[in-house]
């Protein structure tokens, strides 16, 4: 019998949603076991059951041969299970060791024994190569370190099994590498790691065994060595997935948007970008490449009207849009898919229909004399739900109850309901499952083929390479390289410019785009 054995797990949420239906999971001691599946496949529910947050309606759970009945996370922690959520539960103003010890503080009499806590945290960090200093306040740490503080919390409570819920979603590539070092060292010292993910290359790199879930059921358990990215994706989605967008020989038309001498400043007055020039034409996707924080996303925000422009012009159809309001820009055919759908792209408490109509409240077909035409708004939303195959019960359902991929589809549906002239896209598929990614890519390419000029920024190089016609690399607010997207272009080439290791001369840039 395996170390962790979950058999026939069933969980039906009130309201009849079947989240888990006869799920089997069997994890050996000392392995990295990945659980993969699309958003909504039931991975999170299964993990919540393992961690005692949810109680299964059916099935049994055994740990080390003993049957377990958790009535809450406390029981799971006592049994040696630790979980790191995507959203951390840390006290930002507390130091690392205070966060780690919080709730299980070592005491000297009635006093909190700080020395002991610091020493223990330092020892744990060294032993598992987590590389976390116990002293600084958590809010000063980068996300990757905060995540390792969460891991420390679990280890501090003597976790034998560590569940990591999509740990890489929030990390930069270098941080992912550091996390993997830590995971390997955990395994070396006898811990067991359950790793939830949907980025397949990472899954294949780190895990020994993979359980694939689809629609609340387990569809397979495979050795990582025996599968490829492609076969795994097919298992997950249940059909062939082609994550490639055919680049039709599109007709590149006239210039739609020109950025001329643009300077953007941080609130403290330092440069985000200075004297920037770029231009995008109808029928092309211009990819803006760069490590986050090098100005590419900020340029897009400035064009959308969400960021103050310190100097320079942004011309759309030969009109300077810098002084215009967001609404005026939108009425000139600018659509935008923002970076963070929950923070900017949606009102999660409002219904799907309300979110879809939010940008069109000046439109006579939805609002007449200040009154909402509820019928038209509902019909429009229903039509877009159909057209963009959004999985939702109806137009009146609050957006916040949808899965990440479907939320993003609501944003895409709203922005592309009408063909835009200029489409601004940031991180269109962050945290979105494969099926929806495929759909969103096709939709963006479709808008381009219909004549839109598209500006795309993404942290995912494969996304940029799959979609862009031209690529500009940003480094510290300047464009350091330009490429036409031809088959020979590799992520490594882009990487060396992204990290500022090399830079093209103006002539080279000209030549590259010719």
């Amino acid at each position: 019998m395996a170390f962790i054995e979950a058999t026939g797990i069933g969980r039906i949420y009130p309201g009849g949603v079947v989240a888990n239906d006869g799920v089997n999971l069997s994890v050996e001691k000392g392995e990295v076991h990945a659980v993969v599946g699309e958003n909504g496949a039931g991975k999170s529910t299964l993990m919540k059951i393992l961690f005692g947050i949810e109680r299964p309606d059916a099935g049994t759970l055994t740990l080390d041969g003993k049957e377990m009945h958790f009535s809450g996370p406390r029981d799971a922690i006592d049994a040696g299970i630790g979980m790191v959520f995507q959203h951390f539960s840390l006290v930002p103003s507390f130091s690392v060791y205070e966060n780690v010890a919080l709730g299980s503080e070592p005491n000297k009499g009635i006093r909190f024994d700080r020395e002991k806590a610091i020493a223990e945290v330092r020892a744990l960090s060294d032993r598992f190569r987590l590389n976390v200093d116990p002293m600084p306040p958590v809010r000063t740490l980068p996300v990757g370190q905060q995540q390792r503080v969460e891991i420390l919390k679990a280890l501090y409570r003597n976790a034998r099994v560590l569940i990591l819920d999509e740990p890489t979603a929030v990390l930069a590539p270098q941080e992912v590498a550091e996390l993997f070092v830590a995971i390997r060292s955990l395994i070396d010292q006898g811990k067991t790691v359950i790793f939830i993910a949907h980025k397949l290359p990472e899954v294949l790199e780190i895990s020994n065994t993979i359980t694939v879930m689809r629609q609340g059921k387990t569809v397979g358990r495979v050795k990582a060595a025996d599968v490829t990215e492609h076969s795994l994706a097919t298992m997950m989605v249940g059909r062939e997935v082609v994550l490639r967008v055919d680049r039709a020989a599109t007709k590149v038309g006239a210039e739609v948007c020109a950025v001329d001498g643009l300077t953007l400043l941080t609130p403290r007055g330092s440069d985000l970008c200075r004297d920037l020039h770029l231009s995008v034409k109808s029928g092309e996707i211009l990819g803006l490449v760069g490590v986050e924080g090098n100005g590419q996303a900020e340029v897009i925000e400035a064009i959308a009207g969400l960021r103050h422009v310190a100097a320079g012009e942004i011309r759309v159809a030969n009109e300077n849009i810098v002084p215009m309001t967001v609404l005026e820009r939108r009425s000139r055919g600018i659509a935008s898919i923002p970076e963070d759908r929950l923070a900017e792209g949606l009102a999660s408490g409002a219904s799907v229909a309300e979110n879809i109509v939010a940008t069109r409240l000046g439109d006579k077909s939805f609002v007449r004399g200040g009154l909402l035409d509820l019928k038209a708004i509902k019909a429009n939303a229903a039509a877009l739900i159909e057209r963009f195959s959004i999985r939702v019960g109806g137009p009146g359902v609050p957006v916040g109850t949808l899965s990440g991929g479907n939320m993003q589809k609501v944003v895409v549906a709203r922005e592309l309901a009408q063909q835009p002239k200029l489409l601004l896209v940031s991180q269109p598929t962050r945290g979105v499952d494969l099926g929806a990614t495929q759909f969103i890519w096709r939709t963006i390419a479709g808008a381009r083929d219909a004549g839109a000029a598209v500006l795309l920024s993404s942290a995912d190089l494969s996304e940029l390479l799959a979609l862009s016609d031209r690529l500009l690399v940003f480094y510290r607010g300047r464009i350091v390289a330009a490429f036409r997207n031809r088959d020979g272009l590799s992520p490594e080439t882009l990487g060396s410019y992204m990290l500022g290791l090399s830079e093209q001369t103006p002539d080279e840039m000209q030549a590259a785009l010719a």
Partner: protein
Amino acid sequence: MSTEAAAPIVVASAAGNMRPPSRRSIAGREIGRAAIAVIIAMIATVIIIFFVSKSPTDAFMTLLTAPFSKTRTIGLWVDDVAKLTVTGLAFSLVFQARQFALGVQGQLYVGALAAAYVALSPIGQTWLGLPLGVLCAMIAGGIYGFLPGIAKARLGANEIVSTLMLNYIAVELCNFLVRVQLVPPGSGLLTTDRFPKPSLYPVLVPNTRIDLGLIFAILAVLIVWFALYRTSWGLKLRLVGHNARFAEYAGIKSNFIMVSAMTAAGALGGLLGSMFVQGQAFGQLTVLFEGGFAFEGVLIAIVARNRPLAVPVVALFYAYLRQGAQLMNIRTDVPAEVISVVAAIIILLVASQFGLPAWLKRYAVGNRAGATR
């Protein structure tokens, strides 16, 4: 930790089988929650009364039944419902736009002052006294709501602080003006003359306090509901309340929405001022006549989850408790302050979105599943 982020999908392949929580079931859950909060609060009340009173059963029965005992007490109850509804609506409106403006009290006083000036002027003797009094009260209240709104939009003044400060100004302004202008000189009274009849709200049910204010309250509910859910202004207001950054990105002028919401709520506060002084309960302006009543609207709005149609329902229950407590105060040895404890417990339970203990929930869910449908 996001609990709903990973919304599980339904196994059934047909999309038609998906059953998201319907509006009715959500409403049912909210009502259930409120009902449980009331029950817990009542249990606490029983315990307190048991310790305080010599005859706890009498006191508790008075609390529960006294408002229904006479036509007059029913009148007191209904009058309270109307007023609680209007203050609850005013708070709901600003809360839905996620503005924590607490200015209803000040708006109520300036509204009452405006109504009093109209009623005590020569116009007050004519038929114009009533409508003009109401109108001036609403305009005064509206201006008093607009001020903290524009101060926030232009200067970034925190609306909680500015509205609370403006409340003091209005209370003391009323105090001052009543003493030096509105009361006959040298009389030393703190109350104006009774307003002339044409300026008073007509009585709807004889020998009770039920007057035109009830109609105003009902109209206010309908208008606020319509404005919030059927106009583009209301949709924008709710979107700003849900996510101001999203509203900005969608091109909604959130500052305009914020200021207009606070102004509209101010007009409701002004209306409430008129309902007090022109209504049957007072029919005159007295210093400090309101006694903190306006803030009961915060409780109403929180329990009603800022839903205009739920506001009168909550007001109905809460006014009953308030009147029951008043009568208990008069007829038994338990002071009316007990009701503050009840109110505080209800607010705590509702605002904290308390969850039931697992065993109780399982029991409740099991029962519901067993029920034939």
